[in-house]
């Protein structure tokens, strides 16, 4: 685990570029560990490749990051996004890729990031996903995990919570949103072809989004130690 930069005390905690690198690498591990699980969720209402796609993408990301020497978090996230775009494919590739690229612009030139930055990054990511994929909340996509998560993050920020605590809330909200995808019918993506038959199944993309947020929370806990 890398050093944690405590620039403004625990609650105004800021992460360094190396923390961000650590977080992204941890996401890659979580995705790899859940490759089979995500693929099985996709088999039920899609084409059985979501875990495979994401794992391929994050394997490329971690190769890419190995060679990267940068103090610019924006630059790092942009590299992550571009790598996802050109290695994942399918629907999730352009969407997660765009998400990271947009998140990057929110922290362009910065070498540290606090909770406020995370809110901006996630906001930008969600806007990117929406404009690429034309989906909304309740369409049974990754947005159903991400939108509640950033709302929770913003709330936590307003309440002056710490980054870790805020991500604990975001993770919870993402989890609820992810589980809620079982209760709705898909209107976007491959599952939408199923119509009513998509009901009762958890969306794989919402699940990978939840897993990423949960991984960030976990990494933050590690970093705090």
């Amino acid at each position: 685990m890398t050093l944690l930069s405590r620039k403004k005390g625990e609650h105004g905690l800021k992460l360094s570029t190396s923390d961000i690198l650590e977080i992204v690498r941890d996401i890659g591990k979580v995705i790899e560990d859940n490759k089979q699980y995500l693929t099985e969720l996709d088999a039920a209402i899609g084409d059985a490749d979501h875990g495979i796609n994401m794992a391929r993408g994050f394997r490329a990301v971690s190769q890419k990051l190995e060679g990267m020497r940068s103090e610019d978090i924006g630059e790092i996230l942009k590299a992550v996004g571009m790598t996802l775009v050109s290695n994942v494919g399918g629907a999730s590739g352009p969407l997660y890729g765009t998400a990271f690229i947009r998140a990057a612009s929110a922290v362009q030139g910065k070498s540290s990031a606090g909770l406020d930055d995370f809110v901006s990054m996630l906001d930008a990511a969600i806007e990117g996903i929406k404009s690429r994929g034309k989906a909304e909340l309740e369409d049974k996509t990754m947005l159903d995990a991400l939108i509640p998560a950033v709302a929770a993050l913003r709330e936590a920020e307003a309440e002056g919570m710490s980054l870790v605590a805020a991500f604990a809330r975001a993770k919870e909200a993402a989890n609820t949103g992810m589980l809620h995808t079982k209760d709705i019918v898909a209107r976007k993506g491959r599952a939408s072809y199923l119509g009513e038959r998509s009901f009762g199944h958890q969306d794989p993309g919402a699940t990978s989004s939840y897993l990423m947020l949960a991984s960030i929370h976990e990494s933050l806990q590690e970093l705090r130690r």
Partner: protein
Amino acid sequence: MKKLINSTESVVEEMLAGIEAAHPEVRKLDTANVLVRKDSPVNKVALISGGGSGHEPAHGGFVGKGMLDAAVAGAVFTSPTPDQIYEAIKAVATEAGVLLVIKNYTGDVMNFEMAGEMAAADGLRVDQIIVNDDVAVEDSTYTTGRRGVAGTVFVHKIAGAKAEERASLDEVKAVAEKVILNTRTMGMALTSCTVPAAGKPTFTLGENEMEIGIGIHGEPGTHREELKTADEITEHLVDRILADLPLTTTDEVAVMINGLGATPLMELYIVNRKVQEILETKGISVYKTFIGEYMTSLEMAGTSVSLLKLDEELKVLLDAPADTPAFKVF
């Protein structure tokens, strides 16, 4: 999982190497998983299609004279990435322009569009059309709409012939749109496929069950039901198509009976017998019939029936010469 492969990671690359070695008329780009036509004329609209792998001969098998100039191969069932598609565009783009033939899947549409934007930024003239022939899916502007399936091959053939005539990009696009407007497909499966990297069948059907309205990725169809006779199944498929593409006794159609991967040709012909009988009873003339594997779903057993309503222009273009590994007309 029983497959003739070396590793689940290498299937696409090794397949492309095998295609390149088998068919001297196509070449694989060094820079990407793209098959291009070797002798693409420089003054014609370039046609590019592609998508996830696992649908062979689609789309690499349709690269050649009178059809595609390039086909981009993604991972199995996964749309190729924008950079791969961008390489394809750069490799075959001409002054006359490029038309991207995209099957209607969120992933394909986004990746092809991103590549189109990249190419447009380079000053290349790129347009696109989206194929959505699958009547199993309800058409709605609130959802992703219909999937693109086997009917896509009619688009390749006819738009390809139009481009070969040195028609303009707008003309090629217009005829492609006409094909899309007049093509409908409906499919069914007896067994699932197995995505190599997933290692097990995407779904399981009972010994006496079939999946109706299946797509080409092992995604569930409209419903499951008890296995019926070939005639009953065929009747259902054709009924679904005709409910959406009303045809009258003056109409002429092209028929495609497409095998999804593991269906013996014998069974496809049995299905064809019934398709022709139904159409004959309704007084609809069949201009031409295509039977075989055109757009598969790995080793899935099942079939799809496609009908294309023809006019004089489409008939001429359908009959125009084509010389590709998987589709030859002369």
